[in-house]
C-alpha cells in the first residue's frame, strides 16, 4: 500500500475516485438535499444584497457560497460543485500535510477532514458557506510563508482580512500559525497570534449588533441563528490535527463509516417528498410510496396530494398508510418546511389565499432570515392570480435579479394587469376559476366545509371533490361522507372504489340493501367476505389482513 501511494498517480486516482463517489452520492442518492439548500436562500445580483453580506465577518465567503449554491437548483451542477468542494478540501489538506513533510501512505489521512465534513453536511442546517469558508481558510494556510519575518508580516496583515472573509474560521488559521511557530521555536508569534485574532473578534462585537459568542460561532455557518454550533469546530480541529501531526492512516476509515449515520433517513425522506412535489413529479411520489409506505403526516400528505393530482385518491387512498385527516392536510405550524409543503396542497386545491399565507409564513420562518426563490415565485403567482399586480411585480422584480428565475420572472411580468391573459393561462386561469369569491375566515377544524365550498363553487375541481369525500372517511365519519357523496353525485358522476366501499359500509350499518348500480358486484362480494371474517374473528382476526387496503380495514382495524 505504501509503495502504491508513493506513485503520484495513485494519489490522483484516489482523489478522483473520492470525487466520483461524492458526485454520485449527491447526484443519485441526495439530489433533494442539494435542492433543499438552494430553496432556502435567494442569491441576488444586487449591490445592496451583496453589500449587506460583505459588511459582516464571513460575508465574503457567504457571497461566494450563496452564489454557487444557487446552481444546486440543477442537481447535476450542484453535485459537481459539492464534490469539487470536498475534493478541494482534501487536496488542500494534503498540500498542507506535504508542506509539513508528510508523504506516501499519509495521503490517506488527508481525506479525514473532507470525510468528516461529508458526515457533518448530513445536518441540513449546516450551510454551504461553512464548507467554502473552510476551503478558503485552508488556502490561506497554504500560502502562509515559512520564513519568520514574512510569517509575522503575513499574519499581522492577513488575520483581520481572513476574519472578514471567512469569519471565525480564522481561528483555524491562527492555531495553525501557532503550531508552526512553536515547532520552529518562534515563540513570539506562537504566543501572540491567538490573542491578536481574538481581539479582532471581540473588537468587531463592539461595532456589530451581535454578541461575541455569535461572532465566535459564525454568522453564516448554520441556519439557526439562536443555536451556537460549537461542534462544527470539529472539522477545523481535525484539519489542524492532520496537517500538523502525523495521524495513522487507518484512522481515515472511521469517518467513512460515520457518513451513513449523518444522514437521517426519515428527515431525508421528507426532503425528497418535498423535492418531488416542487417538481410536480406525482408519479414518482406514488412510486416512492408504493416502495416504502409513508408513515409521517408530511409524507402521507405528499402521497395523498400526488394521488389526488393523478385522480387516484378515490381509488387508492387506503392502499397507503392513513392516519386521520392530519395526513391530508397537516395543521399549520410556524415552521419553514411543513408550511411550505402544506401550502402546496392548498395551492393545488385552489385555496390561493391560504396557499399564499403558508408560503409567506414559510419564508419568514426561515431561521437565518433568508429569502427563498421557490417561495418568492409562489408569492408572485398567488398575487398574479389574486390580481394584486403591484405586489406581484415587486416579487417578480426581485426574481429578475437571479440566474435561475430571471426568464420565468420576465415572462410573468408580461402578464401584469393583463386580465385576459391570466384568465386564459392554463394554470392561473384554472386557479382563478377554482378560488372562492366570498371571503370568510379559514378554520382548520372545518376543512371539510371549505372543500365543500370549493366543490360547490366549481364542480370541475377534481382535487376538491376527492379531498371532500376522503376527509370524513379519514375521520371515520360515515354519515358526513354519505351526505357529501350525495351532494357530489347530484352534480358530477363520481363513484370510485373508496366511495363504493363507503356506500356499502354505510348501508350495512343501517342494515339496508344498497340500491342497484351504486356498488359493483366485486366490491359487494368482497365486503360480504370482510363482514363474515369480522363477525367471526373480530377486530383481531388474522384473516382481516387480506382486506388491507380497503376502507373497511381502515375503519375497523386502524
Amino acid at each position: 500500500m505504501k509503495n502504491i501511494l508513493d506513485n503520484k498517480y495513485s494519489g490522483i486516482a484516489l482523489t478522483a475516485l473520492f470525487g466520483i463517489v461524492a458526485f454520485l452520492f449527491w447526484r443519485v442518492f441526495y439530489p433533494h438535499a442539494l435542492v433543499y439548500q438552494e430553496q432556502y436562500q435567494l442569491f441576488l445580483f444586487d449591490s445592496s444584497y451583496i453589500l449587506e453580506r460583505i459588511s459582516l465577518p464571513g460575508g465574503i465567503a457567504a457571497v461566494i457560497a450563496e452564489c454557487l449554491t444557487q446552481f444546486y437548483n440543477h442537481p447535476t451542477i450542484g453535485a459537481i460543485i459539492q464534490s469539487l468542494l470536498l475534493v478541494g478540501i482534501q487536496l488542500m489538506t494534503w498540500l498542507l500535510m506535504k508542506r509539513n513533510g508528510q508523504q506516501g501512505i499519509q495521503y490517506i489521512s488527508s481525506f479525514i477532514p473532507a470525510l468528516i465534513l461529508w458526515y457533518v453536511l448530513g445536518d441540513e442546517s449546516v450551510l454551504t458557506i461553512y464548507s467554502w469558508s473552510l476551503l478558503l481558510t485552508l488556502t490561506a494556510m497554504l500560502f502562509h510563508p515559512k520564513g519568520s519575518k514574512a510569517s509575522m508580516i503575513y499574519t499581522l496583515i492577513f488575520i483581520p482580512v481572513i476574519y472578514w472573509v471567512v469569519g471565525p474560521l480564522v481561528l483555524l488559521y491562527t492555531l495553525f500559525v501557532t503550531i508552526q511557530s512553536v515547532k520552529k521555536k518562534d515563540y513570539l508569534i506562537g504566543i501572540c497570534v491567538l490573542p491578536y485574532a481574538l481581539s479582532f473578534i471581540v473588537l468587531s462585537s463592539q461595532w456589530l449588533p451581535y454578541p461575541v459568542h455569535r461572532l465566535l460561532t459564525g454568522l453564516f455557518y448554520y441556519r439557526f441563528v439562536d443555536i451556537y454550533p460549537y461542534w462544527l469546530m470539529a472539522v477545523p480541529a481535525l484539519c489542524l490535527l492532520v496537517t500538523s501531526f502525523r495521524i495513522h492512516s487507518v484512522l481515515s476509515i472511521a469517518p467513512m463509516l460515520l457518513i451513513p449515520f449523518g444522514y437521517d433517513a426519515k428527515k431525508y425522506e421528507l426532503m425528497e417528498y418535498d423535492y418531488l412535489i416542487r417538481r410536480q413529479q406525482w408519479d414518482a411520489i406514488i412510486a416512492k410510496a408504493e416502495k416504502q409506505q409513508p408513515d409521517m403526516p408530511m409524507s402521507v400528505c405528499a402521497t395523498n396530494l400526488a394521488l389526488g393530482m393523478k385522480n387516484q385518491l378515490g381509488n387508492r387512498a387506503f392502499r397507503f398508510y392513513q392516519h386521520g385527516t392530519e395526513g391530508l392536510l397537516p395543521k399549520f405550524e410556524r415552521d419553514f418546511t411543513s408550511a411550505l409543503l402544506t401550502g402546496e396542497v392548498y395551492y393545488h386545491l385552489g385555496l390561493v389565499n391560504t396557499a399564499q399565507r403558508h408560503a409567506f409564513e414559510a419564508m419568514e420562518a426561515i431561521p437565518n432570515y433568508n429569502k427563498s426563490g421557490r417561495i418568492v415565485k409562489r408569492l408572485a403567482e398567488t398575487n398574479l392570480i389574486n390580481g394584486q399586480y403591484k405586489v406581484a411585480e415587486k416579487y417578480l422584480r426581485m426574481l429578475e435579479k437571479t440566474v435561475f428565475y430571471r426568464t420565468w420572472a420576465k415572462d410573468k411580468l408580461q402578464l401584469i394587469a393583463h386580465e385576459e391573459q391570466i384568465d386564459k393561462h392554463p394554470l392561473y386561469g384554472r386557479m382563478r376559476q377554482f378560488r372562492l369569491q366570498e371571503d370568510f375566515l379559514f378554520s382548520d377544524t372545518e376543512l371539510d366545509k371549505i372543500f365543500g365550498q370549493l366543490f360547490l363553487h366549481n364542480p370541475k375541481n377534481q382535487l376538491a371533490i376527492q379531498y371532500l369525500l376522503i376527509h370524513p372517511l379519514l375521520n371515520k365519519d360515515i354519515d358526513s361522507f354519505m351526505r357529501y357523496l350525495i351532494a357530489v353525485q347530484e352534480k358530477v358522476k363520481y363513484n370510485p372504489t373508496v366511495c363504493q366501499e363507503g356506500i356499502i359500509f354505510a348501508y350495512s350499518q343501517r342494515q339496508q340493501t344498497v340500491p342497484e348500480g351504486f356498488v359493483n358486484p366485486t366490491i359487494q362480494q368482497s365486503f360480504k367476505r370482510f363482514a363474515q371474517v369480522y363477525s367471526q374473528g373480530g377486530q383481531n382476526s388474522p384473516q382481516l389482513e387480506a382486506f388491507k387496503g380497503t376502507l373497511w380495514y381502515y375503519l375497523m382495524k386502524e
Partner: protein
Amino acid sequence: MRNSIFKYCIILNAVKNLDSTKQMLSRSFASLWMTMTLLFILSACTEQIKQAEPINRLPHIYPDYIGVTIPAGIAPLNFQVLEPSIEKVDIQITGSQGGELHVQDQWANFDIKDWHELTEANRGGSLNIKVQAKGKEGKWQAYKDFKIYISPYPLDDFGLTYRRIQPGYEVGGNIGIYQRDIHTFEETALMQESAVPGRCFNCHTPNRTNPETFTLQVRGEGGGTLVQKNGVQTWYNTKTDQTKAAGSYASWHPDGRYCAYAANAVHQSFFVGKDRNIEVYHSFSNIVVLDTQTGELIVSPLLNTNALEIFPAFSADGKTLYFSTSENCNVPAEYEKVKCSLCAISFDATTGTFGHQVDTLLHGPATDKSYIQARPSYDGRWLMFCRAERSNFPVSQKESDLWLMDLQTGKFRSLDEVNSPRTESYPNWSSNSHWFVFSSKSEDGLHSHAYLASIDEEGKVTKPFLLPQENPLKYYRNMFDSFNCPDFTSSQVEFDIRTARENLFSNERVQVKIKE
C-alpha cells in the same frame, strides 16, 4: 462628476510641480490633454438640450411628488421619471423666491446641501420643477412643469423612528426598529431580531418625540417592558395577577413619569376568499398606567372592564387619557361586530388617579364604524384617529382612513387630503404639531410606507409626500418590509443594544406592583 473634477485638479497640480524644460513641455501637453479630456467628460455628462419635444402633460414620476408640500431642510425629494425607455433625465428647479438647481442624471438625484439651501431660501414659497427626459432613440421630451411647495412651518425634529416588519401574516421575519435622519438619507438600526434571536418586539414609543424617554415591549416568553430614561434602561415585568398580559401600544404622559399601556392578547385569522388576507383581533384588552417613579401599575376599574379598552393616548396637558373601547365579541366568529368607540377619561398626575366617568366622543356601534388609534397633537389643538368599518386594529383594515377632530370645537372630518382607497393608520405628530407622519398602504395594498404631511392653524392639510430616499425606486422596490408605527424623534435616539441584549437575556425584570 465632482469627483472627476477633483481628481483632475489634483493631477493638474502634480503636473504643475514639474520644473525642467522637458518637463515644462510635458506639462503643457499634459495640461492640454487633460483640459480636452475634462471638456469631453463634461460635454458627455451634461448634455445641452437644444430642442425638446413638448409633451402636454405632467410626467409620470415615482414617488408622486407633484404638488406636495414639504418642510425646508428635508432630505432631497429625489424621484424617477417613469416614462418608457428613459435613458437620462434633466431636471431644472427654480425657486419662487430665488435659487436654481439643475441635475442631469439617470434619475432626479439632488445634492443634499444644494437642496437644503434652495428649500431654505424658498420657505413659504414654491419650487417649479421642469422635467425633460431623453429616450433611447436620443430625443428629448419636455413635460409640463409641476410645483413642490415649501411650507412656512419648520420641521426641526431629527427624524423618524419606525419598526420595519414583514407585512401580512403571523411570522414577522427579521423585525427591526430603525431611526432615520429626515434631513439626509441615513437610516440606522436601533434593534433587529437577528441581534436578539427569538424575541419579537413592539414599537419604540418616545415621550412626545423626546428620545431621552422611551419605552418598547418585547413580547412572549422572556419578554419584558423596557423603559429608558436619560440612557438608563429598566426592564419591567408588567404582568401581574390582576393584569392578564404585559403592556403594549404605549403612550407617555407629558411629565414623563407615567406611561399608559394596553395589556392585551392579539390574534390573527385569515380569509379564504380573494379580496382580504387577514383579520387581526384581540381576545381581551385593558388599559394600565405604569408609574416609572415607583414601579407601580395604576389600574382603574373603568379601564379594566369586560369590554376591550385599547390604544391609550394622553392629551397634550396630560389631564385626559383618550382610548378606544369595543364590546367583548366572540372573536373570531363575530369579527364583523367589533366596533370601537372613541372615549376619554380624566387623569390627575399629582395623585396618579383616574376620574370616575368615561366620556364617549364618537360612538362606534351607533355609527356602525370603528374609531381607533387616537393621537392628540402636542399643542392640544387636534385629535387625529383612524376610522374603519370594524376592528380594533386598523392596520389590517383596507378601509381605515385618517380623521381629524378639532378639540376646540369638537368638529371632525375625514382627512381626504391624505386618505387613499387603501389602509392609512398609525398617525403621529411632530414636536411642533404642524407635521404628522402616518403609514399608508396606498402603493400596493400590502406594504405600508411612511408619509408626511403638514397642517396649519385652520386645520388645512397638504398633500402628503413619501419619505424621501436617495434612489426611491430601488429602495422601495427592494423593500419588503412595512413601516410600522412611524413617529418623530426630536433628536437622535441613543440606544445601547448590547446592554439591552444582556438585560433581555438575563431575564431580570423589575416586577411591578398594583397601586392600592
